[in-house]
């Protein structure tokens, strides 16, 4: 009842003109980012952070969240119309979505994607309301040892999904953690790895690094590729027929469950739920031979799972303070920029903010449905923006974002440096996601560990006395250790770095 009461208050705030406008702008910009091939939700959310500098914390989070799930839907449009996924999670949608477009059913594919995204996103938010508060209450009983173990578990899960690249993922995690430690030691105040550079006393900025690794690196990769000839599919209508809707009901239901459950697990990424929902749908179908040839259930399942995942991924962030993907890490960065630490205390200390943001997820899903069904044709036209203007436009935002936070040109150089680094790491198949999550969790991990060891007088035996911490530490470490030495016997599920 308490949650319902807070949620209603959240709706009252989220439906105010100001926050409705922020959600609308976020949905529009997010869809735009999703439509433009190459720019994923992580890059999009990061490069649009400067737009929120002047907003209050609630408005900033509402807009950035809307950008996130707007981008998750926007990628569908290019997947269906030109067979190019606008973001990594839309790869699966290409399989049947583009086939439908070739058969003259692009409108049905986009329509069912919008409906599935709406249903998946809304039901996942309902589940978020039910799950998040009890989870946060449970986490309130955690001490620093449990929090340290929880963060280790989160990072291990991200690493564990790197497949055959797990050793590289572990190394990237360590590099990310080390970069997070640059600056003044939060406990004793001693400078570390600063080399007398004044700008480094505050640490390496998370936002310039993310903008570099995702925004700039993605542009550099896109700039290098040769232009390909794109065939546009004809868009006759934007609504699926009644028969197609009936055919998709089961797929939407199953996609919601798959997306929500996998969204709760840190590190899974958006590709895995979409892929699993698609495979599940093919398995349960009486006519699996239609899949890959324009089966509407294929589009419905993948798109529903995609948006259910996006909303469910907010649960670990809001309730535990653990980002489950790079995009959620960017959102966590936005919380921190606004002086708010996501986690179990959020529900106690900032109930108005957190419930308004949750209510805005519902509002955002409705806005996306309203925006996407009739405006599909308009979004498709955006694909005609030449790369030169898109590239310059994105770089303008990157410069403003990197500079604007601390008014430091040093951060612009940091962004450029990490852009080049991100480009090389992607070419060499080093996973970037673990480093991003480690970069944002690093300071909190160190603080938790050091507080734990101060309590125990420097003894690690304290973890043995705390069963929750011990379990949280042991299980993922054992699983990663097992996978590390048996990598070739298990099918790898590789995470797309853009999500």
């Amino acid at each position, binding site marked *: 009842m308490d949650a319902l009461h807070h949620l209603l208050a959240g709706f009252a705030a989220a439906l105010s003109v100001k926050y409705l406008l922020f959600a609308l702008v976020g949905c529009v910009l997010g869809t735009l980012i999703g439509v433009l091939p190459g720019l994923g939700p992580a890059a999009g959310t990061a490069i649009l952070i*400067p*737009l929120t*500098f*002047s907003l209050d914390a609630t408005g900033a989070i509402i807009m950035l969240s809307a950008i996130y799930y707007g981008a998750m839907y926007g990628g569908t449009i290019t997947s269906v119309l030109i067979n190019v996924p606008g973001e990594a999670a839309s790869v699966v949608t290409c399989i049947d979505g583009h086939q439908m477009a070739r058969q003259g059913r692009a409108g049905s594919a986009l329509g069912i994607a919008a409906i599935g995204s709406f249903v998946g996103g809304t039901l996942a938010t309902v589940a978020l309301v039910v799950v998040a508060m009890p989870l946060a209450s449970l986490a309130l009983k955690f001490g620093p040892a449990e929090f340290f173990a929880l963060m280790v578990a989160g990072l291990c899960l991200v690493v564990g999904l790197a497949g055959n690249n797990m*050793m*590289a993922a*572990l*190394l990237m995690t*360590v*590099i990310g*953690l*080390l970069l997070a*430690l640059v600056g003044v*030691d939060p*406990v*004793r105040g*001693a400078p*570390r*790895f600063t080399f007398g550079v004044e700008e480094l006393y505050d640490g390496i900025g998370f936002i310039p690094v993310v903008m570099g690794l995702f925004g*700039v690196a993605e*542009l*550099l990769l896109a*700039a*290098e*590729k*040769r232009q390909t000839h794109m065939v546009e599919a004809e868009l006759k209508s934007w609504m699926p027929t009644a028969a197609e809707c009936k055919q998709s009901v089961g797929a939407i239901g199953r996609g919601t469950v798959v997306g929500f459950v996998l969204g709760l697990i840190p590190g899974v990424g958006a590709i895995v739920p979409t892929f699993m929902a698609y495979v599940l749908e093919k398995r349960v179908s009486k006519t699996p031979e239609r899949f890959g040839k324009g089966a509407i259930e294929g589009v419905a399942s993948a798109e529903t799972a995609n948006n259910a995942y996006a909303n469910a991924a907010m649960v670990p962030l809001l309730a535990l303070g653990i980002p489950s993907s790079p995009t959620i890490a960017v959102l966590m960065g936005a919380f921190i920029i606004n002086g708010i630490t996501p986690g179990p205390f959020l529900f106690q200390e900032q109930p108005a903010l957190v419930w308004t943001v949750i209510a805005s997820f519902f509002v955002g899903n409705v806005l996306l449905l309203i925006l996407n069904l009739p405006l599909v044709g308009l979004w498709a036209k955006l694909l005609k923006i*030449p*790369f*030169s*203007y898109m*590239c*310059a*436009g994105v*770089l*303008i935002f990157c*410069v*403003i974002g990197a*500079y*604007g936070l601390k*008014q430091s*040109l040093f951060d*612009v*150089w940091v962004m*450029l440096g990490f*852009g*080049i680094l991100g480009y*090389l*790491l992607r*070419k*060499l*198949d*080093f996973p970037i996601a673990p480093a991003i999550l480690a970069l944002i969790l690093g300071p909190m*991990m*160190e603080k938790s*560990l*050091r507080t734990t*060891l*101060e309590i125990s*007088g*420097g003894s690690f035996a304290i973890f043995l006395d705390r069963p929750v911490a011990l379990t949280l530490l042991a299980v993922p470490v054992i699983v990663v250790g097992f996978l590390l030495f048996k990598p070739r016997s298990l099918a790898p599920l590789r995470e797309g770095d853009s999500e």
Partner: protein
Amino acid sequence: MRQGRLIATGAMLVFCLFAVWQSSLLSLTDRLGPGPGFFPFWLALIGVVLALALLFTTYREPAAPAADDEVRILPYGVGGMRWLAIVLLMAAAAAAMEVVGFRLAMLVFNAALVIALGERRWWVIALFAVGGSFGVYYVFTHWLDVLLPDGRIWS
């Protein structure tokens, strides 16, 4: 690809070794418990072990098929020129911004970048360059309260 991975892992090994050395200069423990060097020291040491293990496994990997060898790590050809144009123009803009400010630096950056990426219509270039520098500056500083560099020569 394999050679590139070996070089990159080697660089990470050097980075971790450097971090071990730097953190060993800080206090690892004191009377209150772990010191500022404690976490980075052990972390960097783990990084060294991981980098060595990755070097070893990459070195022992069987030779990649011919198609894989064709994957070039560094940019090349026309795409490489576009890549270089973005990086150099970004660096030039970042360097110039401190002196001439956001507006002038981005005016030149926008015009030069779209030309480098293939645009030839002068009026479109001019419109985009002005909008993307003076226009963006106005929107962010006046409407969104974001401070942008004005440049030393104007102050």
